[in-house]
């Protein structure tokens, strides 16, 4: 490192800051560019729920031990049953989930206040990297073995769309 480098021109500092900003934007852009909305599909109708709206309606904050992360995590989300009722009018008998990693599954039994649709973790919005943009968790998973991840198969990650199956 030399002296010249220590005394950079104002234009150089601006250029450096711009580069830093570009890096930060660049890191988050690909994921956020893809995952800006959650698709809610009901028959032929697809409703896009903006993640910003989802964050706004996430009115519940709770802390639980996340077996995938192996630590206590503060999660913010919305009660999934209430969310389904708001979106579909009632809780569908089954839901078909499609994730950003192309994982697909159809599951039943969502008329249960224990499930939460989480969109933030420890104060930060979920991203693809943190298995977001939204994720389903059980607020109370009883005495299930947290070392056995098979016990948490229904915690759907990276949810891209939710389709009601009537």
């Amino acid at each position, binding site marked *: 490192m030399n002296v010249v480098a220590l005394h950079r021109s104002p234009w150089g500092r601006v250029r450096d800051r711009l580069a830093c900003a570009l890096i930060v934007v660049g890191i988050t852009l690909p994921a956020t560019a*893809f995952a800006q909305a959650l698709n809610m599909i009901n028959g032929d109708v697809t409703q896009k729920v903006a993640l910003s709206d989802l964050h706004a309606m996430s009115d519940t904050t709770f802390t639980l031990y996340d077996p995938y992360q*192996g630590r206590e995590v503060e999660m913010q989300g919305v009660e999934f049953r209430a969310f389904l009722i708001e979106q579909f009018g009632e809780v569908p008998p089954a839901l078909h989930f499609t994730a950003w990693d192309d994982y697909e599954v159809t599951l039943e039994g969502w008329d249960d206040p224990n499930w939460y649709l989480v969109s933030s973790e420890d104060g930060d919005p979920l991203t693809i990297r943190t298995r977001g943009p939204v994720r389903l968790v059980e607020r109370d998973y009883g005495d299930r073995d947290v070392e056995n991840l098979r016990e948490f198969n229904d915690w759907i990650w*990276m949810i891209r769309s939710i389709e009601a199956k009537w």
Partner: protein
Amino acid sequence: MTSKPKLAAQPTMQPRPLARQHRYITWLSLSLMSFLALMVLIVYESRWVYPEIQAYFSQTGSLTGQQLSTRARVYLQDAQSELLSDQPEQEALEAATMDIDLAYGLADMHIYRREYACAEPSLTELDRLAALLAARDIDRIAAAMALFAPIQCLTHIEMDQLDRRGAAINDFSESTRQHSLVLTYSSLLIFVMGLLFWWLHERQLRRTDRATQETFEWMQRAMRDPLTGIGNRSALHQDVLAKQHQSLGLILVDIDFFKQYNDAYGHPQGDTLLRQLAALIGKTLNDKAQLYRLGGDEFAALLHCPDIDTLKSYCHQLIEGLREADFMHPAHPDKKGVTLSVGGSCFVADEATFPYAYEAADKALYRVKTMGRDGWQVTEDA
């Protein structure tokens, strides 16, 4: 004189002793409990095996059904393909960055960080690469090359997880084999025990039935005169009680000068005469009467008797029948053959009336004896 005298009525069967019932009920209970235990064992084993099978073999299609490391590795390889493809740089970099993010999300597992030393550096490397790609500060080929280390790590995790799953399945297989052996031998043992208890139950039941049969036969013998085969005094009382409220006739028969007969012919011949007379009385009364031997030379007959004339008719038949049979009696004081003194009475069967009827018949018999024997009398107002 071939007619066989009618035997006294059979005594009714008594219930099995309570203690014996309890004993074989216990064997039966043990047997049933054994078979129940067998069922419980089979159900328990089934309930044990099913969740285990589900745990190891029914994970296809679930979130963790395919290893997360496998899915992460595939995304990294996809990222390499995107980076090395011919498509425009912007699209290639966006697609590769998305794949790297997905791989990061799948690989960023607590269990991987804890168990595999390469996990943490690999995630750091993915972080660094994503930043460089976002800043367009790395060559596509170099980026693709840089992904080899994380891919190698994920492959290692994948292989190790597969090994662990294989080991777990082997353990499960061995455990299943052990359970199968336990189930086989236990069920065999319990089944044999169940059969054994059942056999003991059956044996106890047969013994009890045999004891009951012996008791029944013993009671029959106790009610029968062993010499003539006809009933004894006890049987007479029992039969009267069994015919309550029926109009009956009681005939008492006494052999005249039987002592002299025995003295002349000897007791064996006297016994023969008793058997012959029992048969003769039965035949003479047309097998309608039940016969009893009350003492040494005294017989009784119990028969249906609607009126006193019927009774007189039977008494007359007895005397006439004996005359026709013409049994020799060399010691008879009146130089006759064997003669009988017969007394009878009619009564309505009841526990209270029988003693009076017996007394009335005996008085009639006594009148015959006082009148010189060889005849019959009935008491009409018994």
